[in-house]
């Protein structure tokens, strides 16, 4: 569908706007929950939005920010989207499937969010049909079209050491004319990664990428080592490359961003911090009774610290292990128990070890061995954020058989390694998303997805790159199934409670 048609369809929306107000009212939140491109609101220095687990707070350093004319908030391209369309403050600068559903209900599918280019399962499908947007509406997935053969980060061509064939293509974007490996591209479906807390995602702790066996690649703009933690497949090594990729694809911006636009977007992205701020289950603020949850701590801390040799990961909630009798008396038994559960969850996260098996990026090619005993913080090791200090490309099996769920609404690819077989899957691999291999060109990287930031989780379900976990319990259940951890029911709930306050 032409972009102009979409705009015409978007205009007569008075009824839809009323429906939107009713929809957000039903969630009990402020009516300004959705930030539309170009609406010109002022982004406050501190902005709170409710979610199912409490309140998420977003801080803007140097705020408030006038968004009128700001390239992050203005519709730059043909489809009417802005960066903010998919990076909503209420959703921890990501986009939840629930918000997508609300936008569909509010606009009858006319919002630029549902642009054919990637907000539908495939542009060849009838765009007015809700079913054509099922992956976005049900699992928060956008179509990501990667070049084939592979181009590495910074755009250099790579000769892949594997072939790719389409086994199943339920949406047409890997086999219709102009689509698929035979047409020079591969379409996969992924969640939006949060644009917040960026100093942590850009932080470089050490000079090496131990998973790839080299020193870190250098940023083409400033010559400094790149963190490798921005994109699910590490296809963009710095914010400029990421925003150029996003503006040309997701916004269908035909021109190049100007240096001034790039600087304004980058400055904004480096100024925004988000995290859960309060929890009714905890009886109030996550920065009370000795805890230091919330985004202010993120804003004020140094990024890139390895928890194992410094401040332990999620020690923000350690004080809740020993709440004084005086403080305890101020809480109901349920709220006291919740806080204690969060503190236990942090310890389970750090200390409950299990056998990690067959996960490339952990069990190969690094020398940790297969299997290796460790805990969640083996990979989620950065203090305050829980992402990987090293570039975080790891295969948890979330996109690749036999571990991934058998979803028939996703394309399925057959990867055949031309050289050495994959160390855990063998020569032939079935995957919904080859992940980092679509950037590195290496068969050994099939299925690797960059670790997610763990802040603001409560605001942005579903989880994992392909939305396989509908809620926080789903995350725990996946790990339990994948690694046969043996969590007790109490430990599972403790982990859910921990993640709900991050």
């Amino acid at each position, binding site marked *: 569908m032409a972009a102009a048609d979409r705009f015409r369809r978007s205009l007569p929306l008075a009824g839809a706007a009323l429906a939107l107000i009713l929809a957000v009212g039903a969630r009990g939140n402020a009516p300004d929950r959705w930030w539309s491109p170009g609406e010109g609101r002022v982004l406050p220095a501190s902005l709170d939005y409710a979610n199912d687990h409490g309140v998420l707070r977003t801080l803007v350093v140097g705020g408030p920010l006038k968004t009128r004319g700001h390239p992050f908030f203005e519709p730059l391209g043909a489809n009417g989207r802005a960066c903010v369309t998919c990076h909503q403050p209420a959703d921890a600068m990501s986009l939840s499937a629930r918000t997508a559903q609300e936008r569909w209900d509010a606009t009858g599918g006319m919002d630029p969010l549902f642009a054919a280019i990637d907000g539908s399962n495939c542009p060849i499908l009838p765009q007015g049909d809700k079913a054509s947007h099922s992956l976005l509406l049900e699992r928060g997935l956008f179509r990501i079209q990667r070049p084939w053969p592979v181009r590495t980060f910074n755009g250099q061509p790579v000769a892949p050491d594997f072939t790719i064939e389409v086994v199943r293509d339920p949406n047409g974007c890997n086999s219709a004319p102009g689509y698929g490996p035979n047409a020079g591209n591969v379409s996969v479906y992924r969640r939006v990664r949060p644009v917040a807390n960026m100093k942590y995602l850009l932080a470089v*702790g*050490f*000079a090496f990428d131990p998973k790839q*066996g*080299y020193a870190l690649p250098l940023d083409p703009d400033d010559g400094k*080592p790149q963190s490798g933690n921005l994109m699910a497949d590490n296809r963009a090594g710095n914010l400029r490359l990421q925003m150029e990729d996003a503006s040309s694809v997701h916004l269908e911006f035909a021109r190049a961003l100007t240096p001034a636009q790039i600087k304004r977007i980058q400055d904004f992205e480096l100024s925004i911090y988000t995290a859960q701020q309060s929890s009714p289950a905890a009886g109030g603020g996550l920065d009370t009774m000795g805890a230091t949850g919330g985004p202010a701590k993120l804003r004020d801390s140094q990024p890139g610290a390895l928890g194992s040799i410094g401040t332990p990961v999620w020690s923000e909630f350690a004080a809740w292990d020993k709440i004084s009798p005086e403080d305890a008396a101020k809480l109901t038994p349920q709220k006291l128990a919740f806080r204690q559960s969060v503190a236990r969850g942090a310890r389970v996260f750090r200390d409950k070890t299990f056998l990690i098996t067959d996960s490339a990026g952990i069990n190969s090619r690094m*020398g940790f061995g297969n299997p290796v*005993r460790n805990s969640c913080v083996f990979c989620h090791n950065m203090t305050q954020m829980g992402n990987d200090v090293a570039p975080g490309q790891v295969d948890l099996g979330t996109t690749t058989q036999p571990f991934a769920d058998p979803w028939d609404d996703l394309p399925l690819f057959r990867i055949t390694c031309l050289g*050495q077989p994959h160390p*855990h899957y063998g020569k032939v691999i079935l995957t919904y998303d080859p992940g980092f291999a679509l950037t590195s060109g290496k068969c050994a990287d099939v299925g690797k997805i960059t670790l997610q930031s763990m802040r603001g989780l409560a605001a942005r379900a579903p989880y994992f790159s392909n939305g396989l976990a509908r809620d926080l319990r789903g995350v725990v259940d996946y790990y339990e199934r994948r690694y046969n951890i043996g969590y007790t029911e109490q430990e599972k709930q403790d982990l859910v409670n921990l993640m709900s306050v991050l």
Partner: protein
Amino acid sequence: MRTLVTLAALALPLSAQAAETGDLVRFVSCPVYRDADSGKKSGCWLATDPGSGQRWDVSQSPYKPNWDFAVLVEGRVSAASADPCGAPVLEPVRTSILPDPCTRHMLPAEGYKGRKFVLPPRNIQPLSVARDTPPGPYAERVFTTYFEFDRDFLVYQYDDYIIDKAVTWVRAAKPKKLVVTGFAATEPETVSGQMLAERPEVARERAESIALTLRRLLPELPVETKWELAAKPTDDPDADTIPGQSQRRAEIRAIF
């Protein structure tokens, strides 16, 4: 049964029966994981020498086994206690993953505790920690990195440590260029009845792998590559007295 065990013992090579502290042991076998649990990275790796029947604790290798594949074990008999994992210890030791498939085997802890993880001595500091400037005078010098059998992959908490030292020295010494020479142990040797030889190509792969890393760490400095086959053992201390390890190397030579 007892007779069979005795006969089997008599069939063992003398050297195996008389292994003494410091002796070099080299064999190929399928690794066994013992699920000892003293916290993170505490599990045990065991491997049995098919020639002697002796099971060894090979857990201290900087690159550990994959239970799906055979390993080339190279190590020296240690006087350390067999208590952690239930087998006498090889240390220093190397366990190179070979392409030959193995059936997975895991033993329960059976009361063995493994080893509580401690950082290995070769570990690098974060970039935020300033490095001491190495004292001069500076002259041509060689730093040597080491690899798993037939691989060019930079070994975590081994090669990165050596390269970090090299780069710190190079930044102070300011040589004109670096020449990286990759070596491969291409001369065939029979180990546990298998003929082992590294691919000739791995010499070049090692040189280019290390050169890429150096170009990223020292972008202003020219880095050239060379490679040599039929590598001979050296007595470089960072090879930890294991001849096979010393053959699988890449040398970084600073030229003034």
